[in-house]
């Protein structure tokens, strides 16, 4: 009996503490943290005993990222994952600042799956939008000169689905 408990404890002990830039602490399983290539490297060389500082990533972003990592370390069926991913992205998409930070952080932590997911979602946001709509959505200045614009319209006219 006693040995089983210690084994379970050992399993449980494989937890690692991550500290965000605003010194919020997150205790997660090692396999969850391993989803990030960068954290995995840190754990490999420094061990998991001491808390790992994740500078440059704020608490709310790190929380969201760990939520993603946790879900994706469970190895559930693909349809379940896709549905969950979609809901996760729908939530993230609403706040552009958060969305950008999420992309930066996942890139910084080297979680390629998440970078892919976000980039695909991002590309989806731009799909079938006119340049003016894109500029408004992302608050981009139109710094093209008249000549440049005319030139673009002649070379990219095919992209505007002419009837």
């Amino acid at each position: 009996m006693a040995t089983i408990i210690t084994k379970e404890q050992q399993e449980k002990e494989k937890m690692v503490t991550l500290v965000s830039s605003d010194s919020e602490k997150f205790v997660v399983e090692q396999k969850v943290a391993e989803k990030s290539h960068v954290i995995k490297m840190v754990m490999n060389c420094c061990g998991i005993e001491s808390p790992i500082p994740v500078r440059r990533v704020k608490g709310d972003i790190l929380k969201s990222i760990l939520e993603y990592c946790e879900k994706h370390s469970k190895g559930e069926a693909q349809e379940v994952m896709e549905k969950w991913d979609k809901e996760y992205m729908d939530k993230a998409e609403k706040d552009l600042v958060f969305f950008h930070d999420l992309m930066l952080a996942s890139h910084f932590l080297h979680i390629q799956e998440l970078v892919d997911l976000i980039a695909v979602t991002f590309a989806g946001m731009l799909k079938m939008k006119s340049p003016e709509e894109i500029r408004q959505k992302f608050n981009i200045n139109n710094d093209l000169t008249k000549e440049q614009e005319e030139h673009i319209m002649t070379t990219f006219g095919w992209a505007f689905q002419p009837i």
Partner: protein
Amino acid sequence: MASDVSLPPEASTYSRLIAMQFMGTERPWLNLYGIRVRPVAAFGSVSSKDLVDPALIHRCLPDELLFEVFARMTPYTLGRAACVCRKWKYAIRNPSLWRSACLKTWQLSGPITNYQLAHSVYDGSWKNMWVHRPRIRMDGLYVSRNTYIRVGVAEWKVTNPVHVVCYYRYLKFYPNGKFVYKISSQKLKEVAKCMNFRASKTDCVHKGDYGLDGDLIKAAILYPGLRRTLLRIHLRVRGTTVGANNRLDLLKLVTTGVDDSELNDPNDDMLGVVEGWQEDETHNPDVPAISHKRGLTPFVFVPFEEVETSVLNLPVDKMDYFVTG
């Protein structure tokens, strides 16, 4: 130590070395690590105002992440995004974006031919190739709307009524050399759902093989049934603007007979069967080769997004004829 080993005087003590800044070198540029430097206006620029980009996306995302996003766009979204601002315009000139689009679209030609063509014909520019080389669009349906006038039966009336009859030919191509074809009087928005390989027999969607050579498409379909009939279609790709590729001219539509011995497997490549056949060649004397002359209106491309809203859905009393241009 023996004092006869002559050392330069400044190397005599460790503290001297530190003082010389020989050990533990200062590397001030390391302090810049992780700090994004804002672009400054070009020297002599007239605008003296602060250059803060109002776009969050430009302030937050480094170029490599913006590229990740661009790499996941369809070429059509990419083309529109190029018109947004200068930064995006330059980012989208990246040839690897267009190379992947080209290799995907012309995957039937094989990568080696595509690379050779890009270098010999299109000055090594994949974007040029994308725009100027004729290609079949896969992101929608090609529709040919045909109308004809049929004289109706006069019922206690002096004048003979006439009916405008409208029917459509639908084509949808896949990158792997297969396509589906349907001829029907149903509207575009009803047909769009069943134009795929999973369509049931009752949908009358026929599957065939095609090949693209320059701007010419050769396609062949086997109609199932007791007397097997092959439908051979020749089309030419063109566009209403440069690079649009949104029209297919129907050059030839031939039904012809085929011998059962030539068909071993229903999944056979039909194009291979008719390879080298003459225009009026038939391999089954019961089914003569007929070149059809009716219903050859050019195909108009409708992207999936516009299937519901396209004018081609209009009934004949709203639009009796669609000038394809």
